[in-house]
């Protein structure tokens, strides 16, 4: 943002303020249509010209952008919306007049801000218990920073099932496969004893030309076989044996 004053800036401000102030302010519906690309080009241009002079319309246009975004299903937000509705419902009386008095948060009632925050926290807790384990771990993985992630180097050349087994304590670990030159690989993680696949996915070299995989906190302890192939169902190029044990062991 421009913060300094200068001859150039002052002259530009003077020039813009010389132009007539816009009078005909677009409605919220026009801004919604604008953000959805429903307006002809010349009207879009007019609206954009209007924004340069009109601060309130700029703010409204920016708000309309958030409204016009397509809906995306979000389990976490639906839970919060449901919890928030339960709280709001208690504020809505049988008549509109009743709503006003309750929303003022007076007459000996606790402040609704306090009630809202504490009750919502309780409601969310109860609601979140209902989410399945996968949803919860996804949310945690998305939101929680993970410091001190240890690296486990998996040098190439371990091509046989009889290769050296690496032991990795449970906890977040970054597996690093080195010395790769293909643009993409396929990694399958199998239970060592049964060969049952527990995870598979494509690996691509990162900017340092290494392949990496984050082993999460909750990865189940056990013995695994990591098979690195040239493609899904393709030739296995490397195999690493990994033993995941209980405890962080940092």
């Amino acid at each position, binding site marked *: 943002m421009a913060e300094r004053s200068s001859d150039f800036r002052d*002259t530009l401000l003077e020039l813009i303020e010389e132009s007539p102030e816009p009078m005909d302010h677009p409605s919220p519906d026009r801004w919604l249509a604008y953000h959805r690309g429903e307006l002809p080009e010349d009207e879009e241009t007019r609206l954009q*010209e209007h924004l*340069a002079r009109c601060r309130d319309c700029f703010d409204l246009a920016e708000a309309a952008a958030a409204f016009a*975004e397509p809906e995306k299903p979000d389990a976490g937000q639906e839970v919060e919306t449901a919890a928030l509705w339960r709280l709001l419902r208690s504020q809505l009386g049988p008549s*509109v007049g009743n709503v006003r008095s309750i929303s003022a948060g007076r007459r000996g009632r606790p402040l609704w801000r306090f009630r809202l925050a504490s009750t919502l926290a309780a409601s969310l807790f109860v609601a979140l218990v209902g989410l399945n384990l996968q949803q919860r771990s996804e949310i945690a993985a998305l939101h929680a920073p993970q410091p001190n992630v240890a690296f486990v180097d998996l040098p190439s050349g371990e091509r046989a099932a009889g290769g050296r087994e690496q032991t990795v304590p449970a906890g977040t670990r970054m597996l690093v496969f080195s010395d790769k030159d293909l643009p993409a690989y396929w990694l399958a993680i199998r239970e060592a004893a049964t060969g049952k696949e527990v995870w598979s996915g494509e690996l691509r070299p990162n900017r340092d030309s290494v392949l990496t995989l984050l082993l999460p906190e909750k990865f189940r302890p056990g013995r695994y076989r990591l098979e690195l192939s040239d493609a899904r169902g393709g030739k296995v190029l490397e195999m690493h044996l990994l033993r995941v044990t209980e405890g962080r062991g940092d």
Partner: protein
Amino acid sequence: MTVGEQTPSPVDSPRAGPEDVLRAVRDFQRGIDREKSFELLFRRFRPRIERFLASRVFSHEERLDLTQAIFLRIYQGLEGYRGEGSLEGWVLQIAFNVYRKWRDRQPGGRNASPEVSFDDPPDAPEPSVMESFPSPSTAASPFDQAVRQERLEALRQAIGELAPKQRRCVELYVYQERRVQEIATVLRISPETVKAHLFQARQRLWDKLHPLFGTIDF
């Protein structure tokens, strides 16, 4: 569909269709199952309001307060909604008004009052605006005025020769003092494109105006 007809309730779905929403408004206005009708509207619009508030209000608790204030306003005003514009536009206007009122009350809000020093004697005369900011017409010499006029004309011409998108980016960035991300949102282009427009505009203005202005700093 007539009012009061028994149909499966769409309330449980946050993605109720436009007809469900309009029916809910009609039912609410006629006093038919008001709570259920309003719940549908709440579920329909709350995600949008949260998206709107999320980038503007950092505190989660403040956002909850504002969300509740917005829906209470909607609840209070819904009987008066006559469908002259879309319901979505009407809700947007209410959400925006509630947010703006809240924003203007914040310390850095639009209407923040200037701080007053306690060191000033209470009966000290207010400084004259004319003393602080002498107007060009009274203070500037004819030469200064001629220079100013020349600069204004040169800038007008240089700005007019910029590509429209470049000009808009400069105006919003300098005049409105908006951030790149905000400009990108309202012009529906990427922040990188805004930066590129600003960069190119700066280059062009420098080429044309640096003999007059010296620096083109924005």
